[in-house]
């Protein structure tokens, strides 16, 4: 009679197998670490260390040239006394709150159009992406030209409809709307991401919906948007972070070399004020404190978005 040797749990055979698996996993881990070590080293040197050191600098009075002088929480206290911090934060908040949803909606609308473009899709994909290749500094200069209150293209087009366009580049009420509209210039990359997501939505879902009598809007709302919600969320969160860090276009248009003396408080975004403190006024300690405040703000908003996204975002294959 044949006998099958069965090891009881915790017996010698199980231990050997478990050890072999552990050794295998360790080897895999070591290999993985080895392969990503260039990134880790780069991250530690060029990102982690500056972050940590800026935390220290935020507690000092530091002018770049002379040694940092420890001042405790003075820079953080100053953040609450400096009225321009409130102005800059408000400008940044308003810009982000309006720009991000608009950016996502326009991206989605263009992606949906491209999805229906058939053979012409390739041409339009390229056409939409090309503006993204424009350097942000050039976009800032372009803003001054397109939104020029006198001869700008935007007011020219508004004029066709009998609308006397505003002074986009000088009227404080219209500076942010101009910047928000100009930011749509670079919508191409998001369109490409969303288009890729759209192409991954199973056709059977639409077929079934059509059989059930669903119209285009119902299909978009009930199938398309939920199925690409992961991509939408990615665009939303990345643009929110970018919104809080808005700098180049506004700086070029309203604070940069083209306008060495003209500026507009309505375009004073937080990172612009941070940059001026650091590199124009040489208040590097204060600028570091500002950077940490922004970091905390972004973390809070990101955490909220991640929390909220759990209810709305669908990831294919995700275990819930």
């Amino acid at each position: 009679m044949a006998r099958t040797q069965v090891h009881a749990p915790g017996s010698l055979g199980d231990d050997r197998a478990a050890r072999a698996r552990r050794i295998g996993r360790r080897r895999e881990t070591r290999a993985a670490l080895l392969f990503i070590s260039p990134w880790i080293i780069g991250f530690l040197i060029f990102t982690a260390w500056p972050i940590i050191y800026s935390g220290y600098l935020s507690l000092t009075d530091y002018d770049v040239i002379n040694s940092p002088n420890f001042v405790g929480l003075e820079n953080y206290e100053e953040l609450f006394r400096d009225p321009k911090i409130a102005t800059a934060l408000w400008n940044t908040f308003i810009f982000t709150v309006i720009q991000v949803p608009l950016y996502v909606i326009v991206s989605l609308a263009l992606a949906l159009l491209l999805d229906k473009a058939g053979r012409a899709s390739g041409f339009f994909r390229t056409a939409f992406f090309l503006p993204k290749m424009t350097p942000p500094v050039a976009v800032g200069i372009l803003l001054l030209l397109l939104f020029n209150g006198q001869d700008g293209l935007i007011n020219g087009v508004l004029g066709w409809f009998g609308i006397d366009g505003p002074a986009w580049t000088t009227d404080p009420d219209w500076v942010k709307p101009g910047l928000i509209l100009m930011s749509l210039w670079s919508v191409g990359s998001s369109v490409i991401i969303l288009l890729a997501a759209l192409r991954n939505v199973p056709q059977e879902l639409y077929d079934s919906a059509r059989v059930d009598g669903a119209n285009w809007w119902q299909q978009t709302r009930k199938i398309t948007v939920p199925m690409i919600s992961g991509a939408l969320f990615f665009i939303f969160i990345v643009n929110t972070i970018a919104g809080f860090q808005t700098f180049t276009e506004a700086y070029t248009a309203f604070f940069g070399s083209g306008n060495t003396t003209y500026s507009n408080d309505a375009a004073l975004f937080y990172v612009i004020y941070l940059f001026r403190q650091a590199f124009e006024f040489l208040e590097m300690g204060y600028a570091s404190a500002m950077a940490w405040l922004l970091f905390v703000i972004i973390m809070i908003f990101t955490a909220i978005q991640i929390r909220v996204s759990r209810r709305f975002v669908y990831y294919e294959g995700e275990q819930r």
Partner: protein
Amino acid sequence: MKTAAVRWSALALTAGLVFTGCAEGTSDSSDDESGGGTVYDPEAELSGELNVMGFGATDEIGQTRLDLASEAIAPAAVSLIEGDLDIQQFLSAIASGEPPELVYANRDQIGTFASRGAIIPLDECIDGEGIDTSIYREPALNQVTFDGSVYGIPEFNQVQITQANADLLAAAGLTLDDVNGSDWDAATAATQAMYVGDGSSLSVIGFDSKLPEFLPLWAKANGADLLSEDGRTAQLDDPKVLEALEWAVGIYDVQGGFGAVKAYRDSADFFGAGNQFATNVLGAMPMEQWYVNVVNDVSPDAPMAYDTVRDREGQPLAYASGSAWAIPEGSSNPEAACRFIKTMTETDSWIAAAQARVDLREAEGKPFTGLLTGNAEADQAIQDQFVTPSGEQKWDDAVAATYEANEATFTLPANPADAEFKTAWQDAVNRVLNGQQEPAEALAQAQEEAQAALDEAWSTWDQEEG
């Protein structure tokens, strides 16, 4: 575990995004200044390298003097780090202990650099190389003299003159006296007379008072300085400054507001043949003298008329700006830097450069419109030697106005908070132009901000100096 890893990754990634671009330099500042122990001897043979930051020999004026200065310090070798001075790059170089041997900066940056210990006093250099500081223009020298020590040697000088469209003036029955700033009521009336527009849409700007940048000019024309002579007290809330601001802003108000004028100004082909004067869409404005060359080059037939800017007493006036040479703290070759500076700014070098410019202009069939430097002796020699009637009255008037203005300059004194001070008054003007504040309120806020910055910076300096 996985969730935690994702969170930490998100944290790290976000932190990276936030702090990218906020890199900073670290250094222990050296207590010993480079000038200490250095022997400046005009007869000594020099060696090593001379890396010059912020200067580019982009034309014959620069190249001629560069050749002479390179020869003067040979066998030491000159290497240019071209382009406008990048303050971030310069200070980072200082902080990392590897500064350039010589730096070329705007004169209004010298006080801030000096107060932070980024550049060294040039007293020993001046004595050792025998640089005669009496030949430099006093306002220019004052701009680079901080707390009693000279930290920079002035190079170019820029002044404003009144530049006007003679046809528009004549059509409105006006003369240069109406737009040269000597009579503010007349200037406002001239603006209204030449201005053509409909609400926010302009087709001719009558007069452009060039705010925000020329507030110091109009304040001085009204008898006020924005900053006290010792550079310690802001005077932005002086009633005369307020009056100047109100008048200069009023110039825009009678033309539909600053927004309309700026939009029209921004849409102009400023450096091209279709510039505002050539196309008869600008009556007059104060502008730096180099713009005469631009108009002469691209639109020689433009109907121009020139005068100095004048104060309310009718006297010539110009708010001078320009560049200067300075030796950074930690410069490894201050001897070569000093002799290089001396050669670049001495009278003979300027004359040689002017000769090169004259030759070039003659070859192009264009008039020589003068050369303004921080060296008064050189200016006089160049004017005497090279400035001759061009055959066209307007260009001769431009040159005459330029030299007259050059004799009537003023500057703001060096101070350790120049950037903050400038930002305070410019922001104030901008708030008024943007319709966010009334002039008095804006200047009161600017006074507070500027004085706070000055007090803090001077306090730090005074403590360090003991």
